[in-house]
Every structure is written in structure tokens, then in C-alpha cells.
């Protein structure tokens, strides 16, 4: 994945798998991201991608069980932001299938979380092991002069 260059700043946030912590993760990552100049549009895209990944960890990874730990790490390089969202939950048996637009294991849900992450971020990498957990790594490139 891109962004292996020198790290300019980094943060890591861990929290319990409670729904109200989606907002916490979104605000923390947005505040960190806003340290460099990007457009509000780019900031919005990052917020949506983080919300989707963290919601997945809480809802699917830990099945709504509130005692799991979700970890969100962000690194800033010259090139952009690398955002990692990890859980130690149930894992995904077939990642390629899960990532297909409109696929969901829950009939009530839209199955668009991964599609949003894919379309709003420049790179997306999902690794998962059943009963071990899931790691979503996303890269958002800084465009043009902005963010340098």
C-alpha cells in the first residue's frame, strides 16, 4: 500500500465496541486529518469511510457485544493518510464476497459499507481470519499542493 514514506504524525485510538463510539472515532480521525489542508469534501469522505469501517467492527465483528476493543490508527506521510481499523471479532469467511456491493449477511442492511470505503478512499485492503478478527487498511492520497 502507498504511504510507506516517512511518518509525519500518527495517532491510535482504542475504544469499547459501543455504537456511540462511532462518533468518537469519526471526530478523532477528522480532527487529525484536518491538521493538513484538504477540502471539506475530502474530509467528509474520510469520515464516511471511518464510520463504515468502525460500524462494521462493532455490528458485525463483535455482533453488537459491547466488550470488544476496536482500534483505529492513522499515519500521515507526505503522500496521504493511512487509516487502519481493527477488531478481534468473528472475522469474515470470504472477504471477496463480503466486499461485493449490496452484499450483506444481515437482510436489514444495505451492504454498501465496503463500497463506500472503496469509492471514497484511494486504496482499500481487507484482511480477516475467522474467530481472530478483521483489519481494514485505507489510504487517502493528498491531492495537488493541498496537504503538502
Amino acid at each position, binding site marked *: 500500500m502507498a504511504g510507506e514514506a516517512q511518518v509525519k504524525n500518527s495517532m491510535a485510538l482504542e475504544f469499547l465496541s459501543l455504537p456511540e463510539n462511532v*462518533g468518537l472515532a*469519526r*471526530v478523532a480521525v*477528522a*480532527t487529525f486529518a*484536518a*491538521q493538513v*489542508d*484538504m*477540502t*471539506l*469534501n475530502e*474530509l*467528509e469522505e474520510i*469520515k*464516511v469511510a471511518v*464510520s*463504515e469501517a468502525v*460500524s462494521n467492527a462493532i455490528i458485525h465483528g463483535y455482533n453488537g457485544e459491547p466488550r470488544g476493543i476496536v482500534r483505529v490508527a492513522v499515519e500521515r506521510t507526505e503522500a496521504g493518510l493511512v487509516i487502519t481499523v481493527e477488531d478481534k471479532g468473528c472475522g469474515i469467511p470470504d472477504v471477496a464476497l463480503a466486499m461485493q456491493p449490496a452484499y450483506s449477511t444481515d437482510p436489514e442492511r*444495505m451492504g*454498501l459499507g465496503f463500497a*463506500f470505503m472503496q469509492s471514497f478512499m484511494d486504496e482499500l485492503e481487507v484482511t480477516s481470519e475467522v474467530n481472530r478478527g478483521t483489519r481494514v487498511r485505507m489510504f487517502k492520497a493528498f491531492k495537488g499542493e*493541498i496537504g503538502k
Partner: protein
Amino acid sequence: LGEIRRFLRDDSTVKVSRSLKETAFKVNRTREELAKKLGREPAIGEIAEALDLSREEIVAALEAVQMPGSIHDTIYQ
């Protein structure tokens, strides 16, 4: 310290969200104005400078007007 305490004192919780909503409104208006003037999307630092706000304040204001419910509402609002 008493001075600073008095300066900070404000026991309302409602006021927070109202002033944040006002800020969010200003942020969005300034974003449009700057976009017209510059012919491109403004950077967050340019909006912060135009409104004399910190980047954090802008992030907080935008979060305050975010729909807490479905993420899809926020995208298609």
C-alpha cells in the same frame, strides 16, 4: 482562577449545539463563497482563516450537524 472560572461559566447544554449549528452554517456559506472566488474547492485552512476559527472548531461544527442516524442520510442530504 476564579476569574477564568467565571469566564468559562455557562451552565447550558442546549447552547452548545445551537452555536455549533450556527458555526456550521457559516462554514458552509464561506465554503461556497470561497469556491466561487477561487474557482476550486477551498482548503480547510482557508475556511478557518476566513472565519477566524481553528480547524478543530470547524470539525466540531460540521460533526454537530451530522445526522446521528443512518450514514446514507448524511451522504444524500
